[in-house]
């Protein structure tokens, strides 16, 4: 057995906890989870059945943690996990799983399948079976500070741009601010409008906030690839910056996995509770709305829908807030079929977007989103995750669909009362 295989197996065994054992013990191989996964529904290929993606881990569990497995092993009837098998499973565990968590909603015995996929990836990384694209993104995040190679200079250029456009100052490294805003790489690189948008909203709502030069990047490739060590390093940077600036809150950007990384996994990754609270930008905007601090004075009559980012909704619990915000400014807001917690993934979460090998499959399964969109016939999709946004744009283009995609924060900023042109309020 090679050392990397041994590492992988040891890591997988160490990942098996009470929930995992209860899930594997309960699985009756009914196949219902297939119906929940867009990779199965759009391809019809049984190998994309969610629980099947965990087969090597299931066998390890059975062989090492059950009487039956030990008995079978004893009489030579069990099939050991091999390097070849893990290599074969790599595309199943990464390319065909966006960690969307839809499978975990449907399993009749209650299995949280995505919880186990996340664990399975730890073993895949340890055994050297992670996709090149994701490895590259994670390495860039560790070495350069961002999976997309965005650095402080890029951010500063975007800040300058936003300041010119809004006529307001974008606070950077302000000690003692209440909120520290974190961005995602895609926002800094592709959707920098967000900086101007939050600057104007926070100005109007009188929010004391700042960006941090040493903790502005929220994207966490460590979580997506399944390396808790690297994920902890990335979260640690934000925690250090927040401590340095003594903020009370850290705002998670419009990026689903960044939210999961910061809000739910972060303290566990670094092994201690955060000395600040984490709030999603959409949660904060809705809170400002309910306090009467976010005021709009115009509406957009365009027929719009809202795409729920899996990590924000199903895995994050920010469900009603975006709808309340949409209803403020979009009188023709319509829901797609199966909205909210049941929403279908854009196809590019969980590191799939950074994995070039997965591109053809991702494009194929976009047909699920297309069907949802075809049912509502909208001109604009609003979302609140920059990765979803890029994936939607890509999918729409590939499927020749003429629909605009915008971020919810920007939509709100466009309709802010007063200060419309950005002149200081």
């Amino acid at each position, binding site marked *: 057995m090679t050392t990397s295989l041994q590492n992988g197996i040891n890591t997988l065994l160490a990942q*098996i*906890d*009470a*929930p*995992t*054992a*209860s*899930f594997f*013990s*309960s*699985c*009756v*191989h*009914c*196949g*219902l989870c*297939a*119906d*929940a996964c867009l990779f*199965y*529904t759009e391809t019809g290929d*049984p*190998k994309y*059945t969610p*629980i*099947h993606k965990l087969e090597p881990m299931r066998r390890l569990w059975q062989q090492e*943690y*059950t*009487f*039956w497995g030990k*008995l079978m092993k004893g009489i030579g009837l069990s099939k050991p996990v091999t390097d070849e098998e893990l290599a074969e499973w790599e595309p199943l565990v990464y390319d065909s799983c966006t960690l969307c968590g*839809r499978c*975990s*909603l*449907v*399993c*009749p*015995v*209650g*299995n*949280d399948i995505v*919880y186990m996929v996340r664990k399975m990836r730890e073993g895949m990384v340890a055994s050297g079976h992670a996709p090149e694209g994701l490895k590259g993104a994670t390495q860039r995040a560790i070495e350069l500070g961002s999976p997309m190679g965005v650095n402080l200079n890029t951010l500063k250029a975007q800040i300058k741009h936003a300041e010119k456009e809004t006529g307001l100052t974008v606070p950077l490294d302000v000690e003692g601010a209440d909120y520290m805003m974190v961005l995602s790489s895609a926002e800094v690189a592709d959707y920098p409008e967000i900086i101007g948008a939050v600057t104007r909203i926070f100005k109007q709502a009188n929010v004391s906030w700042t960006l941090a030069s040493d903790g502005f990047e929220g994207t966490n490739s460590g979580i997506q690839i399944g390396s808790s060590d690297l994920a902890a390093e990335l979260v640690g940077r934000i925690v250090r910056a927040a401590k340095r600036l003594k903020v009370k809150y850290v705002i998670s950007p419009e990026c689903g996995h960044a939210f999961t990384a910061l*809000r*739910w*996994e*972060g*303290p*566990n990754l670094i*092994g201690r*509770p*955060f000395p600040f*609270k*984490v709030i999603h930008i959409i949660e904060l905007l809705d809170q400002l709305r309910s306090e009467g601090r976010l005021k709009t004075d115009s509406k957009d009559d365009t027929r719009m829908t809202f795409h729920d980012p899996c990590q924000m909704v*199903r*895995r*994050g*619990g920010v469900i009603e807030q975006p709808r309340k915000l949409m209803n403020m400014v979009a009188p023709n807001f319509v829901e797609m079929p*199966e909205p909210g*917690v*049941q929403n279908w993934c854009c196809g590019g979460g969980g590191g799939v977007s950074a994995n070039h090998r997965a591109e053809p499959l991702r494009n194929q399964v976009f047909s699920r989103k297309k069907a949802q969109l075809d049912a509502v016939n909208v001109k604009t999709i609003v979302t609140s995750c920059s990765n979803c946004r890029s994936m939607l744009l890509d999918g729409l283009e590939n499927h020749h669909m003429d629909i605009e995609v915008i971020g919810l924060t920007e939509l709100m900023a466009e309709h802010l009362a007063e200060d419309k042109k950005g002149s200081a309020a």
Partner: protein
Amino acid sequence: MVTQEILLWVRGTGLQIAVAVFVIGMVFRMLHIRMLGRKKSLAQARGSEWSGGLRTIWKRSLVSTRLSARGYFTVIAGFIFHIGFFVTLLFLSQHIDLIRAVLGLHWPAMPRGVIDMAAVLSIAAMVALLVHRFVDPVKRLLSDFQDYLTWLLSFLPLLSGFMLLREIGFEYITLLTLHIASVELLLIVAPFTKLAHMFTTFMARWYNGAVNGFKGINI
């Protein structure tokens, strides 16, 4: 005479052994799972693990997601099988008499016609599920030896019980012996196979729901 003696052993010592293995095995299995533990989340809770866990224990008995035709088939056949199984187990007068003799608890029996129907439907659903396991590509891929073994072990008590009620095929004593023996086999194997899901599913649902409850997600 020999059949009499076998029956005596099967309904006496045999049953005691089977019940003991079942109870001790199940308790051990669940404790073993529980003792693997889990990390307590250090994130700030937005809701309660217990309310989420209990909610999921209940809600997973219902279908809340749109399924495909094969999915609905599985759910409906699965419901019929489970309900039929428990109706015959808990409401046949002979079973109630046995429970009363052992535990002192009793409740009204259901009419024989209802029991017959429940048994027939349950058997039919099981056969349909087995056929589906062979023909449906997803289930065929997932299935292993244990799936077929546990199917057989659950099927035999139903079948032998039904034959016993109607005295089909063999003499009453032989059928009774076979029926009890098939139940004992089921009891003995259950803790060591996926039949354990009869209890572990509640743990699985609780753990799944607890994570959502912690995050304040009501699903």
